[in-house]
């Protein structure tokens, strides 16, 4: 027993010593090679990084990494800041996450002493639509306001992530007094505040031709509202209008002269002439859905007569409204167009109410789910009875359109299609809102 123990100890010690000896001997050969290879790889990586910096700042003589000397806000996404050695400017590297999978958009941006972008490299992690070359190119020459950068359709999330990363880099430079942040124009600030001013705003639609004092005009994505920038002498005011003649005018007030920050407040009564000019301008545009609405109703209600366009006094997702007579009874038709904020698509919904405010008919041109082929992802969508679902609304009033009734397990929820369910709810709510205003708020 003792002999076995002694043998074991001797054997184990011998093996350990032999292993250590062999390792040391082998290390004499492999050690220097491993170190040399490591240095070579680090040199290559440094060259690659320097190459990227040079691409972002063409003509630079060299770079000094000043990241450690700066205060970088946590969560800003700014990874590094390099100073051009002949003081021509800076290169910052920043990243921003986007999408449900938290993919990364990484940018390397060269900024000259005047605060203008001289070069940009963009690297997008797999998982979104490819970003066109025109997107990074649109950043060249921009200042920290990033007023003229492009956003790419179908790559909205990654385009936004690029913009956020660049903005974070500029904020870091400004916060560390390396350069003064450029002032955003009043127009840019209005556009950035538009989602607060008009909560239904998701993104811009088509640009419209300017006219007289209206120097810029565009529709919202679902054509529910026309946005106008108007010159009033030296002053600039902003207006939102629908095709029914409802106009809201907003006045810009400078609240921080040093930073050039404006606040926006409604001042329609103060700018009655602006409101009238915008109303006239919008009436000339061919974006009204009235004719489409009437044609649809004539198909659904054969023999309908006495069509009368209704004024929509509030801005929202209801584009047009009409009253008509059918078999001696009065009805109201509404064309609503809610937007799916998940991927910025719009759903055209026609709602017909009777004089009691009960739903008589609902039709949907194309469900969100069918716009994206979701039936392949959620099989139940493929066999979903759309007509039966929409007929389920007949006879119901505004009191049935509640938050709860469109959630999972309830009457109007479409299994596996939450966004579509919420889109239907938004469309019906918009129709009832206009109906109530037409009835003087009595229903």
């Amino acid at each position, binding site marked *: 027993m003792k002999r*076995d*123990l002694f*043998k*074991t100890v001797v*054997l*184990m010690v011998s*093996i*350990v010593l*032999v*292993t250590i000896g*062999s*390792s040391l001997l*082998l*290390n004499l*050969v*492999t050690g220097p*090679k*491993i170190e040399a*290879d490591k240095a070579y790889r680090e040199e290559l990586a440094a060259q690659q990084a320097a190459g990227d910096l040079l691409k972002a700042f063409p003509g630079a003589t060299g770079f000094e990494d000043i990241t450690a000397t700066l205060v970088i806000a946590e969560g800003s996404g700014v990874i590094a800041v390099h100073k051009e050695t002949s003081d021509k400017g800076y290169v910052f590297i920043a990243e921003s996450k986007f999408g449900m999978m938290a993919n990364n958009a990484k940018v390397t941006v060269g900024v000259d002493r005047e605060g203008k972008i001289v070069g940009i490299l963009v690297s997008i992690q797999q998982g979104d639509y490819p970003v066109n070359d025109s997107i990074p190119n649109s950043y060249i020459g921009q200042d920290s306001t990033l007023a003229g950068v492009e956003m790419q359709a179908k790559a909205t999330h990654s385009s936004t992530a690029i913009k956020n990363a660049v903005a974070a880099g500029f904020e870091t430079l400004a916060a560390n007094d390396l350069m003064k942040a450029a002032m955003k124009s009043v127009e840019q600030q209005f556009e950035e505040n538009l989602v607060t001013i008009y909560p239904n705003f998701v993104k811009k639609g088509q640009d419209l031709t300017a006219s007289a004092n209206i120097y810029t005009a565009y529709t919202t994505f679902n054509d529910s509202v026309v946005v106008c920038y108007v010159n009033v002498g030296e002053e600039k005011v902003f207006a939102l209008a629908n095709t029914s003649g409802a106009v809201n005018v907003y006045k810009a007030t400078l609240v921080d002269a040093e930073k050039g920050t404006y606040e926006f407040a409604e001042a329609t009564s103060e700018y009655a002439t602006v409101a009238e000019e915008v109303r006239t301008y919008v009436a000339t545009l061919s974006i009204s859905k009235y004719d489409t609405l009437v044609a649809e109703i004539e198909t659904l209600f054969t023999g309908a007569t006495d069509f009368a366009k209704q004024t929509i006094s509030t801005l929202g997702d209801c584009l047009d409204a009409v009253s008509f007579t059918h078999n001696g009874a009065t009805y109201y038709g509404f064309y609503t167009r809610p937007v799916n904020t998940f991927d910025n698509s719009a759903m055209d919904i026609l709602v017909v109410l009777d004089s009691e405010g009960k739903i008589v008919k609902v039709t949907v041109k194309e469900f969100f789910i069918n716009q994206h082929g979701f039936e392949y992802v959620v099989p139940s969508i493929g066999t979903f009875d759309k007509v039966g679902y929409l007929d389920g609304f007949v006879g119901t009033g505004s009191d049935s359109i509640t938050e709860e009734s469109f959630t999972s397990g309830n009457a109007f929820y479409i299994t596996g299609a939450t966004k579509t369910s919420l889109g239907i709810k938004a469309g019906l709510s918009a129709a009832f809102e206009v109906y109530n205003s037409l009835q003087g708020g009595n229903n």
Partner: protein
Amino acid sequence: MKNLRKYFLRGSLSHLLPLGAGFAMASSKSLEAALGMSLAVTVVTVISAIIVSALRKVTPEKAHLPIYVLIVTGVTTLVCMLMEAYWYDAYIALGVHVAALAVSAVPYRDAEELASENGEAKTIICSLVTSALFAVIMIVPALLIEPLTSGSILGFNLGFEGIITNVAGIFMRYVVLAILVAVMRKIGHKTCKELEAE
């Protein structure tokens, strides 16, 4: 020859395959990784078995496991150093799996069942057979998966884009492993019956 067949099919090879499935699956993503791991497995298994065989007469019965641990980990350490120095790409591709060979059941099984009872010649042959088996398990799927996932092999572009995802590649590796297990089980069962009949 009869003994060699017996050792070759000792126990059941279909059990040995899952024992090494971890490093085999991790290494069959690319041909370079598969070749690297095949070489590492061969060197570790054969050299460990030779040392165990050489020390079999002085190794006390109850001290087998600690002695084998030291031998296998020692050999694995040397292989890691060599790979890091001379086959860096494969070393990086394999990551921790090369070092994890030190605790793989495959070299221990050869050491315990074969090398501790037999001379070096027989040990080398059987260890080479074991290593060759695992080389096939790693290289065959890699030959299929690397071109299908990346459209290239060993860095050579094959002129087409990858046509399956990495996830599908993982599934394919398990399919290939399952087929090999089934084949080995069939062969092993038949041969063992023949040996019993003799």
